[in-house]
């Protein structure tokens, strides 16, 4: 096998393993579904009713749905690092690190499997959005784009999560940090309100927050009358570039977790 084929094979070996675990026990996916459903049904309807958030031509519920999808991608991915700490405690990570698979391939494998989990969330968000009358874009190109964005976003945040796990090394510290990071990432983005209405300092943070680009891309592709405020090419470029950087960084840090 050529080196690239081997690399992909190693990454897929890890991803395949994680997906099999999911197949043996899909219950977790159901519990994770509750959050997006609540946000859309409760928060979405309340704020749509009050007309508190100006979203221009698009109805608030339509505006919100991609934001909630991005939120559930973030939440699914950001606690992924816990699984690595768990595996370290069991000795499984040691065996992966002793195999000839390149470290970044191990990281990418996990990132891909986070993408698969996140896709299951996407199905639920689409179902709820459909029920609530959101105007969706069902064309093949749009759906493919959404799949790509969901996988990219999940890969990005799960790799970030793995880096945190390699740094903090214990479950307790990880849970503490996980909570501290998810809320700012979510609220300092355009998930539930447009950038235009943010104070300047928050706008600045939103522009360096990868979640903003995730949401922007999803808004353009999910909605019938969606448009991107930042440009789809930029969205994809930021997400891909950030993911590449994080994967490289994580690959170097992975061995730390067993020290």
């Amino acid at each position, binding site marked *: 096998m050529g080196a690239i084929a081997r690399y992909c094979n190693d990454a897929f070996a890890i991803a395949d393993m994680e997906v099999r*675990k999911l197949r043996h026990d899909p219950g977790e996916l159901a519990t994770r579904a509750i959050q997006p459903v609540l946000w859309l049904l409760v928060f979405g309807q309340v704020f749509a009713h009050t007309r508190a958030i100006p979203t221009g031509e698009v109805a608030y519920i339509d505006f919100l749905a991609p934001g909630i999808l991005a939120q559930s991608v973030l939440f699914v991915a950001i606690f992924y690092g816990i699984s690595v700490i768990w595996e370290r405690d069991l*000795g*499984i990570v040691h065996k*992966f690190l*002793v*195999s000839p698979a390149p470290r970044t391939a191990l990281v990418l494998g996990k990132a891909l499997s986070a993408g698969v989990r996140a896709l299951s969330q996407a199905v639920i968000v689409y179902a709820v959005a459909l029920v609530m009358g959101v105007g969706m874009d069902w064309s093949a190109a749009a759906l493919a784009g959404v799949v790509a964005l969901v996988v990219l976003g999940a890969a990005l945040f799960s790799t970030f999560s793995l880096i945190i796990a390699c740094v903090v090394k214990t479950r307790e510290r990880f849970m503490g940090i996980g909570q501290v990071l998810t809320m700012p990432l979510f609220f300092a983005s355009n998930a539930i309100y447009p950038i235009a209405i943010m104070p300047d300092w928050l706008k600045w943070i939103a522009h360096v927050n990868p979640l903003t680009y995730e949401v922007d891309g999803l808004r353009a592709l999910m909605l019938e009358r969606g448009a991107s405020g930042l440009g789809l090419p930029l969205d994809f470029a930021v997400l891909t570039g950030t993911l590449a950087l994080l994967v490289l960084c994580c690959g170097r840090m992975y061995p730390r977790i*067993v020290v």
Partner: protein
Amino acid sequence: MNDAALARDDRVADVLTTLGLTRRFGHLTAVDSLTLSVGAGEIFGLLGRNGAGKSTLIKMLTTLLPPTAGSARVGGYDIVHDASRVRAIIGYVPQSLSADGELTGRENLAVFARLYDLPRLMRAQRVDEGLAFMGLTEAADTMVRAYSGGMIRRLEIAQSMLHRPPVLFLDEPTVGLDPVAREAVWAHIRELRKRYGTTIVLTSHYMDEVEQLCDRVAILRQGRSVALGALAELKAGTGDPAASLDAVFAYFTGDAVESGAAYRETSLTRQDFQRHG
């Protein structure tokens, strides 16, 4: 045919050599200038209390941890400069029961068959052979969380041998297992060496294990090797050719082979069982 044989210095009769191998953590020296060599096809034991440096030594030799000073070669490859080549030719079974409880036995093996880049057509066959060799064919498609400790340990040994590595590292292979399971694991370890000529480096606290399995033993104390040789030689060295291993250990280290430490490991292993369900 050993398909993990790569082009290397075949004049090396010693499959593993260390030279002044040292590892420090801040002020603590875990492994202190260790020099030893292991010949091809040997079963080599590392004996010592907790804190003697066994785990750190194994971590360095399996490329999980770089040395602070000194060097080591496994299969002719340097553990620092050729780490990825070392990884291709070693197998490793860590101390804790580290199979994934959320997969079946077969699925656990399949992951590693892939990670070791076995050609696709060979993977299923190797997995089946591994399962058969370890007596796990019937349980292959049951979830590992339903396995006993002995079964998990056997599965892990099968996993470590999928790519037929010339060198196998076993960290406390039978700690916490019941006597029947231990005998089974020992029988399989002996069979590995017989069938594949595998060189095996293992760490242990157990007198009977070391006597049953090891050709030579190194006794470690505070990171240093205080005695090295065939068990018969070490016994003779104490002046009593019929000395028990405890006596040999006490003679060379001034300490007892800690039954306290063995208990802790046993309770950790029992916690593993509970985690695996």
